[in-house]
């Protein structure tokens, strides 16, 4: 068959070449990307022509469920942010009951959230380092993450100087700025629809913690970066690690949210929590002491929908780096 025959009817690349496009799966198990992420890239040579990302998670809790079981069931939904989802469930139930948490307990629960944020950002850093071939950084970030997952406040205080030193060294890694700069830029306008570190790295001042009295008492101040690219997202998360260490030091004690107290038989509750990846919101309806309907909103769908436009015509390695820099949590997709 002639060359003309081979390529006849095939799509035309932006550079005018007619090539056979290849649909290639990257996930649900792929180095540097979160497990459960179904990423299908249509490759035009080494460039991404189309990208579609979705979640393979099918673990939505069967309703109705007893209200006192909700925190455990929601926490089990995502292995990447169990504490944040547990906190969200507890707050929604407390809102339904019209109760508030004692300041001391709220502070300890905020510290647990911040511990998860540090561990999550370190885990993301280890994954990104693996993706871009920085094995030493991957091992160090992974080891720090493991050490922090269940550490008490005293242990975190002991490790804080070495974590802060590590965090300050990361941006000085040779050629790292070259690798991440101008990759996957998200303008301030486009970032309006997102939350979490991705939006803050584009200069958007959004954070559910800003309005919380508990965080105000701990001296929380919002940090943002400019640039909106993968490099800015790295700097944003590194800054948040340092910020979270300071918040835990201020709190002095860590406590996981327990089972919600005084759950009313009927009612409606709504709560929001700033998870490591952005704001998650839970609406729930209670009937006869059980959750009969609930709606969970997470940052994943908006970010996943942006992957296609963001990676169009990017070189494959750059596209994967850009996707990894978003820190997607497919397990917490909208339920």
């Amino acid at each position, binding site marked *: 068959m002639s060359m003309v025959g081979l390529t006849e009817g095939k799509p035309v690349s932006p550079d005018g070449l007619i090539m056979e496009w*290849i649909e*290639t799966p990257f996930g649900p198990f*792929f*180095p*540097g990307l979160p497990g459960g992420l179904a990423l299908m890239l249509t*490759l035009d*040579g*080494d460039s991404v022509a189309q990208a579609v990302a979705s979640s393979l998670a099918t673990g939505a809790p069967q309703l109705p469920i007893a209200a006192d079981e909700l925190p455990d069931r929601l926490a089990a939904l995502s292995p990447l942010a169990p504490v944040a989802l547990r906190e969200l469930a507890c707050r929604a139930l407390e809102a339904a009951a019209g109760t508030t948490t004692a300041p001391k307990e709220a502070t300890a629960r905020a510290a647990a959230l911040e511990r998860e944020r540090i561990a999550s950002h370190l885990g993301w850093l280890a994954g990104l380092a*693996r*993706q*871009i*071939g*920085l*094995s*030493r950084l991957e*091992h160090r970030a992974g080891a720090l993450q493991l050490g922090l997952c269940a550490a008490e406040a005293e242990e975190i205080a002991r490790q804080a100087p070495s974590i802060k030193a590590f965090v300050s060294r990361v941006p000085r*890694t*040779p*050629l*790292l700025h*070259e*690798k991440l700069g101008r990759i996957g830029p998200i303008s301030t306008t486009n970032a309006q629809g997102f939350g979490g570190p991705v939006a803050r790295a584009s200069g958007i001042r959004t954070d559910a913690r800003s309005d919380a009295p508990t965080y105000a008492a701990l001296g929380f101040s919002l940090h943002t970066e400019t640039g909106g690219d993968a490099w800015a997202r790295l700097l944003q998360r590194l800054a948040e690690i340092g910020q979270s260490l300071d918040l835990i030091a201020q709190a002095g004690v860590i406590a996981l949210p327990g089972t919600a107290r005084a759950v009313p038989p009927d009612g409606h509750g709504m709560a929001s929590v700033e998870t490591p990846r952005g704001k998650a919101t839970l609406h729930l309806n209670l009937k006869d002491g059980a959750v009969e309907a609930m709606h969970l909103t997470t940052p994943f769908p908006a970010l996943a929908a942006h992957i296609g436009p963001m990676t169009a015509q990017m*070189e*494959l*390695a*750059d596209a*994967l*780096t850009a996707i990894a820099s978003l820190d997607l949590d497919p397990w917490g997709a909208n339920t």
Partner: protein
Amino acid sequence: MSTAVVLFALAAGCYLVAVCESWVVHGRLSLTRPAISALALLGREQILPRTPDRLFFETGPVLLLIAGLMSVAVIPLAPGLIITDLAIGALFLNAALAYVLVALIMAGWGPNGAYGMIGGWRFLGQFVAYAMLIVMPITAVAMRAESLSTVQIVLSQATLWNVFYQPIGFVLFVIAAMGVAWLAPIDLPTGGGDLAGGVEAEYTGARLGVLRLARLVIIVALSGATVTFYLGGWLGPWLPGWAWTALKTLAVAAAMLTLGRQLPRLREARYLAVSWKLGISLALANIFLVGVIALVVPI
């Protein structure tokens, strides 16, 4: 006899480089890990992709090994300890290394899978970046020795090693050598994070073992070439010549393996741009400088 000794030294060198690589990757020194890994690979099931190009799939790893062995043939371990002292040894080495490209494209194309194919074609792009930076520094080395014989090139460094005589050429050659051996951060054809193994992704068992052995041979060959061209080959006090070659070769291999782990994987477009715009300019300047020094101050 020389051939047997060189091949034995090559086998020992490959093993030690594998030990060094596993030390760098896993952070723990283990003298037995490469042997255990090799045995595990040999004992593992060899999975065939669904619709491979069988000829390319089977031939790619073997051709890669042959290319590595051919390039070792002209590297002198000591005076008289060389498989063949060709008058065009340096050129022969370059020609043998050209087959690395062919072998990797075959190994990438053969399995009929996306990761491998992209890895193979990526190496073609990588070849465009490093090819001139292998040839041009060798040209400057041959200019000083007034010969393409690798033995003569070592002897020409009796008064001053080329690493001091032409440091620009040394740096360019080492970087290009890392590209030939697809060592991190120029491991574009296998890129663990973005191609999940690339050209290695579809190989299993003994075939993967051959592929990895071939890569080790190429690393040893390029480290040996660096020693021959820039670090005075077997020249050195106190120890016998073969020991100096062995020590220097291992040191170069260890340095190349360690350096790459500190840096993120290079972006292909950037690697090409820097190689052509900066690398070739520097290589030309190196040839000019070496020519001037050879004419004005013969050392």
